[in-house]
């Protein structure tokens, strides 16, 4: 239980610092730390496979690309908005948009937590999530979602290439 609080605290604090940072490189690194702590939580839930995949996919692959982009752009420290109105929704431009998104996210969270139908994706009796059981349910029960996701990613990739080449 102690470990749960350690990992939980690291995850929450690191996630908060991600948005509290002005230097984007530090934000990326803190997000990696947060993913690492999440992975620790998965280990505590006896799901070592999910924990390792979390590290490989998010911390290892996706965040390397993020870091790459941030470094290549050499993004300077974030500009502070000069709008002094204290309530985010009253401000102009991106701040208002961000405010709306935050409110929407908060409402969704409240809805999800109050209507929670319990956790546990694999259903009862699955035991500790072994690689075999995850693979089986991924390619039988959730085969459609799995395949559709791959098409979605392909579409996103083609879209990115098209957008990037439009200037030529």
């Amino acid at each position: 239980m102690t470990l749960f609080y350690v990992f939980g605290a690291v995850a929450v604090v690191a996630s908060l610092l991600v948005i509290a940072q002005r230097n984007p490189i530090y934000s990326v690194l803190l997000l990696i730390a947060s993913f690492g702590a999440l992975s620790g939580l998965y280990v505590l839930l006896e799901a070592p496979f999910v924990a390792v995949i979390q590290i490989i996919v998010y911390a290892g692959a996706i965040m390397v690309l993020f870091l790459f982009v941030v470094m290549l752009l050499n993004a300077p420290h974030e500009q502070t908005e000069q709008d002094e109105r204290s309530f985010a929704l009253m401000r102009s431009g991106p701040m208002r948009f961000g405010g709306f998104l935050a409110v929407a996210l908060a409402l969704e969270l409240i809805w999800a937590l109050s209507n929670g139908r319990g956790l546990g994706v694999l259903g009862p009796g699955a035991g500790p999530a072994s690689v075999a059981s995850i693979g089986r349910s991924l390619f039988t029960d959730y085969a459609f979602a799995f395949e559709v996701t791959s098409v979605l990613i392909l579409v996103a990739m083609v879209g990115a290439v098209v957008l990037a080449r439009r200037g030529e």
Partner: protein
Amino acid sequence: MTPLLIAQIVLTLFVFVMLLNSAAIMVYVERKVAAMLQQRLGPYLVGPKGLLQPLADVVKLMFKEELRPRAADALLFALAPVISATCAFAAFAVVPFGAQTTLFGLLNTPLRLQVADVNVAVLVIFAIASMSVYGIVLAGWSSNSKYSLLGGLRSSAQMISYELSYGLALASVLILGNSLSLSDIVNRQGGSWLGLLPRWFVFVQPIGFLIYMTAGIAETNRAPFDFPEAEQELVAGYHTEYSSMSFAMFFLAEYINMVTVSAVATDLFLGGWHGPFLPESLGWIWFLVKVAAILFFYVWMRWTLPRYRYDQLMRFGWKILLPVSVLNLLATAAGVLYFRG
């Protein structure tokens, strides 16, 4: 404290010290083999046959001044070598290097010669390999120097490109071994076919082995894929601005990564601690022999082959190695389905 727990702690410390030692030995071997290949003598002054040369190198590094460029990001500059060294040590934790042993009857329950027996060991190694990119990238970025930055960027691009082939080569062995645990995979390679050919996966997966070794050399940034530190173009690449012990940490990480890649290759393809003539309890000798052979091959490669060009490296990685490893994986899966029904 049960005897087993004490044995576990001792084993962990032992592995840690042996990894440090292996880096020292590799420094000596690298210099001696290079000298032999170039018809020189190599180190011979410090100690008998120059055997204490690594010690002299370490002492020299310790007494150097620790330098940091004024424009560097202090925190990340200090953190980067630590990430590199930690990842290098951590990866070896899941590598088994011998059969179960009771240490000549000292223990009641047998001890597995492995720091941590994780049932997803192969994936753990892959995960830690993917984390070790950060040490190099951050070193390059935080130094605030053009050579370091280019070295770090190149290295991350190279590691991301070759990680895919590396992972697919691992996956084809996983299909054969039908497990994600390294000790299970080694145990499946015991015995022999017709009493002659050992049941090592390298004979079933020759292409997989080649892909693994190629990608492994690229992952550890060794010649002929040592672009991150191509001295003609980038001085010393990502560690240009490092000196003293923080440089030593990168140096250490590189050699330990080589040892880990060789040890994993031994477990996955060369039957681990299985071999003729020796009893199971002395299997770790076979393990050491095999790892040493691969490491010698590593050094031999470095002093034989010239460095590729960067675009050649990328073209090779994406257009040749990756398709071949995908085909190899498909063929392995089809073969396993066909023969096991």
